[in-house]
């Protein structure tokens, strides 16, 4: 596998995977990292936090502070309606891309 090319592809997709994870309900940063851990998109706080704050600025998600059983309060993230819309758009676009990728090399 050409890891470098696939790497930049994954980098661009990470944001949409995060939208997908948050769409399942309120999550905090460690949940997101945990869900990504076993995938090709495993990432770290150093990457996640700047990305989350950018997505919040873009109005895709919001957070609220919640007490946690152990330790200090945590930020719980959830999608805004703009975030849900972007995720739906992305999923539809991804579907059409998959079709295109499968069909484009076929000889008629």
């Amino acid at each position, binding site marked *: 596998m050409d890891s470098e090319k696939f790497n930049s592809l994954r980098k661009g997709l990470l944001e949409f995977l995060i939208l997908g994870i948050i769409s399942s309900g309120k999550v905090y940063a460690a949940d997101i990292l945990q869900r990504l851990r076993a995938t090709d998109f495993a990432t770290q*706080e150093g990457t996640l936090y700047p990305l989350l704050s950018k997505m919040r600025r873009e109005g895709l998600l919001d957070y609220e502070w919640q007490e946690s059983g152990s330790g200090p309060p945590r930020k719980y993230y959830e999608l805004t309606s703009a975030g849900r819309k972007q995720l739906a758009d992305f999923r539809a676009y991804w579907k059409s891309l998959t079709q295109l990728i499968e069909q484009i090399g076929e000889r008629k």
Partner: protein
Amino acid sequence: MKKVINISLSGHPNMFQADEAAYDVLRQYLERARARLKNDPDREEVIRDLEQSIAEKLAVVVGSGVEVMGIADVNAVLEEIGAVDGDKGSGFADTADQPPRRRLCRIKEGQQIAGVCQGLSAYSSVRVDWVRLVFLLLATSTAGVGALAYVVMMFALPIVSTREEYFAANRDQAGQM
């Protein structure tokens, strides 16, 4: 005896103890993160998030029986957190790190003759007054060759209307490298 430093991190109530070397590593990590995020409007908030995560992981180390953090403890925690990637992570390109690839243009905004000096000034990041001065000296000291150079560039270079537009177009180019 090794000096022990008390560390408090934002978003976490506990104090942590570390030796001097471990403290330095942590301080450097946060400084680097700040530098990488220098164009991020939410920089301080991101730093607080990072500090809180670092503190949670340090608390686990303390829980395992370590009283004074050594450099290896701090390094292990920071390795888990990962370096802050200001470029790709937040979408704020750190333009200071990569010299932009620019194209020489003429710029209409503020032009005296045809905007050649404005264009050279934007291209080279040299103040336009200095560029004009150099041109003037060149033109008078070379019996018109400098003036000819101006005329050649006037016809050869594409024109954009404002400096802002010039930088917007050329930053995009640099971003696609």
